[in-house]
């Protein structure tokens, strides 16, 4: 689609994997990065405007829809929107009740937010890869920008910042509730006194430490990896469109097939993130293994 003759396949892929980065460049000052290298040079104090924009937009959509239903919630006969929202909430509540044995009014809303928000962000993966970035590039071209150097990633979950952001927040909650429920000493004991008893403290600490830190890392990387790979396949399929009519037709079929399969993946990834969060928090609430 957007891969014209002047853009190689490698450049095309690179273009699609670069975020719209706003930051302070060491030489060019405050502004949007015009190349992938410039984005990297901006260092830590830069912001992925596209990730933030789409994740906040989708989170806002989720909050708006559910708040609207919550305001009009009736115990009588529910309308269409309320029926759908209740179905989602019932589903989440079932999972929380099944996996979480403690009492914490925060876990269920947290699980709901994770599930719906991640699902919506993943859903952006089904939008044809070039559609919004191309339109955005043309739009920015009106203001004198070079469309080839205007970047836009519309799937926030293919940005590790988004997935690690959520996973780290969950990790903070795990630490908070571990200390709150078991006490600092109890939590320290859990990290150091098992599985080998008090003579194996270094080994215990190593094992339990890995166990603890693997939780947020696996949460974030699983979601990111699945969505990043899915996005990559869509990009590769999109490259086929510039390879003549037969390749384009095959690409079209492939895209449909992959999109249908991807519906399963995006739902499953949202579900896995939610269930693991519930399970991790449940473990944080348990005083005994």
């Amino acid at each position, binding site marked *: 689609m957007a891969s014209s003759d002047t853009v190689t396949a490698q450049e095309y892929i690179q273009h699609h994997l670069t*975020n719209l980065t706003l*930051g302070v460049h060491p030489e060019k000052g405050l502004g949007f990065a015009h190349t992938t290298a410039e984005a990297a040079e901006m260092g830590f104090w*830069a912001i992925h405007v596209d990730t933030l924009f789409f994740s906040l937009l989708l989170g806002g959509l989720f909050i708006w829809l559910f*708040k609207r239903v919550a305001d009009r919630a009736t115990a009588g006969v529910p309308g269409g929107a309320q029926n759908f*929202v209740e179905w989602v909430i019932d589903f989440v509540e079932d999972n929380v009740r099944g996996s979480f044995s403690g009492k914490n009014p925060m876990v*269920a809303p*947290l699980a709901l937010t994770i599930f719906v928000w991640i699902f919506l962000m993943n859903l952006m993966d089904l939008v044809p890869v070039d559609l919004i970035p191309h339109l955005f590039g043309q739009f920015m071209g009106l203001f004198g920008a070079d469309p080839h150097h205007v970047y836009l990633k519309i799937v926030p979950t293919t940005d590790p*910042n*988004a997935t*690690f952001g959520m996973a780290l927040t969950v990790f903070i909650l795990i630490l908070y509730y571990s200390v709150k429920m078991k006490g600092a000493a109890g939590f320290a004991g859990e990290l150091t006194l098992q599985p080998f008893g008090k003579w194996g403290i270094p080994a215990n600490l190593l094992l339990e430490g890995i166990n603890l830190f693997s939780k947020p890392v696996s949460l974030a990387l699983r979601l990111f990896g699945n969505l990043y790979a899915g996005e990559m396949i869509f990009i590769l399929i999109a490259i086929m469109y510039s390879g003549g009519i037969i390749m384009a037709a095959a690409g079209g079929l492939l895209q449909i097939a992959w999109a249908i399969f991807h519906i399963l993946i995006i739902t499953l990834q949202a579900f896995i993130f939610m269930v693991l969060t519930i399970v991790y928090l449940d473990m944080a609430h348990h005083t005994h293994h």
Partner: protein
Amino acid sequence: MNINLTLFAQMIAFAVFVGFCMKYVWPPIVSALADRKAKIAEGLAAAERGHQEKALGEQRALAVIKEAKTAAADIVSQAQKRATEIIEEAKTDARGEGGRIVAAAQAEIERETNRAREVLRERVATLAVAAAEKILQKEIDIAAHKGIVDSFAKQL
């Protein structure tokens, strides 16, 4: 694909969304669900109660109908008894009345007979006196013999 400030922005956004959801979204919907559950349970219980009440009512209705039938039969038999009594009374009354009417008629007949006899007696006396007058005109003084005639007349 660089880790940068977006990470913290995402963490803050996530926390805000969760907080908002926990405060304004989750409780009303869950309470609406709980309310509906209670309502449905209530409705089912009410239906069950209604069912039982219906059965009880049917039983009660049967008992009432049975009672009413017995009462009706009683009333009918009493009425029949009363009717027989009334007929009997009427017969007795009629018989008594008939007897009284006969007695009155007989008394009337008696009275009429007596009166007729009285009238006849006077007429016979008068005739006898007249005949005797004619017979005795020449020899008997009316004034002198009237006492004798009257005493005869009274013997009739």
